[in-house]
């Protein structure tokens, strides 16, 4: 298949996929097509689709592609769906999440050490909202559970991968400046 023939197929697959769909997943579904062609087709598709200036855009999220509405039309979409923005995370939960995101995999005692307060209820909230996941046990005395961020974390915060997190050192001078 040519790159141009691949594009509409990829568009329909991005559409039906429940989660952002990766080039690797696309390659499995498009057996026999080269990964390079699929990557090229996906890139071109995203560019062309987004150049239309329509209400939708192809975005790169959590290592895959997904079609979403453009943020500037959110007011109308909210009005239509009568949707409330999902419950905000408490400051404690956000700070705990930040520690986990940058220091993963990390145990509860280690989080306590960094934050200076116990974070169990925040951890529970984050687990319930699937923003973090258990990542096995740490091989130390007591074998505490390790936690890390999930795919939902990337999607929730609009990240393609963890490298897109802002550099922690950038926040160093907040107080001293």
């Amino acid at each position: 298949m040519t790159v141009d023939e691949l594009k509409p197929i990829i568009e329909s697959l991005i559409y039906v996929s429940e989660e952002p769909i990766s080039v690797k997943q696309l390659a499995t579904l498009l057996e026999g097509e080269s990964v390079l062609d699929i990557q090229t087709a996906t890139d071109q598709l995203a560019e062309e689709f987004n150049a239309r200036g329509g209400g939708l855009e192809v975005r790169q999220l959590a290592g895959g592609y997904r079609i979403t509405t453009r943020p500037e039309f959110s007011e109308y979409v909210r009005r239509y769906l009568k949707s409330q923005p999902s419950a905000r995370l408490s400051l404690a939960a956000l700070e705990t999440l930040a520690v986990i995101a940058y220091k993963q995999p990390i145990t509860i005692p280690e989080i306590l050490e960094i934050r200076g307060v116990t974070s169990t209820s925040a951890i529970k909230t984050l687990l319930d909202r699937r923003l973090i996941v258990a990542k096995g046990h740490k091989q130390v005395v007591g074998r505490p559970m390790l936690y890390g961020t999930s795919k939902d974390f990337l999607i929730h915060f609009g990240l393609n991968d963890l490298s897109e997190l802002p550099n922690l050192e950038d926040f160093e001078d907040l107080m001293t400046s």
Partner: protein
Amino acid sequence: MKEALTKESEIDGDGAQSDFAETTDQYKVKLSMFEGPLDLLLYLIRKEEVSIYDIPIARITEQYLEYLRAMQELDIGVAGEFLVMAATLIHIKTQMLLPRDPDAPEEEIEDPRNELVYQLLEHQKFKGAANVLHQRAMMEAAAFTRASMEEDTDNPEVAATVFQLFEVFKEVMDRRRAISEIEIARDEMTMAEKIAEITLMLNDSAEVSARALFERARSRREMVLIFLSVLELVKGLVIRLTQSETFGDIVIMKRET
């Protein structure tokens, strides 16, 4: 970065910068807003406009303790972490008062505040990161995905994570515990005992009604136990079962040897 700081105080509930509130209620709200001892310390450092790298430890310790007292007076539960930090501050303060070894080379003298400063800086960084995450989540919440394609409301399905798996397991076990507690201190009878009991009954009377046997059971477990015992006795050629009509009572009889 300036922007981030302003934004941060917004999610902070606008606490940190403004002056101390006058009324008790406001005072309470403000005090309970500190996530932990590090938050309170950062607030004090900012309020006193001192450098985080050169904290006037005596002054800050005094203020810190004053806040703890206020929290106690106002009946805000002071978590253990606040007290641990109070102890740390007092310890640092004492160390600062100790005369320095005049012979020790300058670079080998470690400032007793170093560890605390490091902790505060780390904490500050994560607060900044939390603020950026918050902003990103707000932006992301403005982008919508397509509607779900099918809905099965009769059979709500759960997309499970390991954590969910564990929670569900715990629920099942809790439910089971609750049930077994209702089965008032049931006999922890073994199958061997049950078999002996049935054999004994058959010594007393030639025929035993299976229905009667099951009706004596006080729990599901005992019922299962009776059932298994009967099967075991049949297999061991000790008893035989007869049923005179379909769906009728089953009669247990001792097998003649």
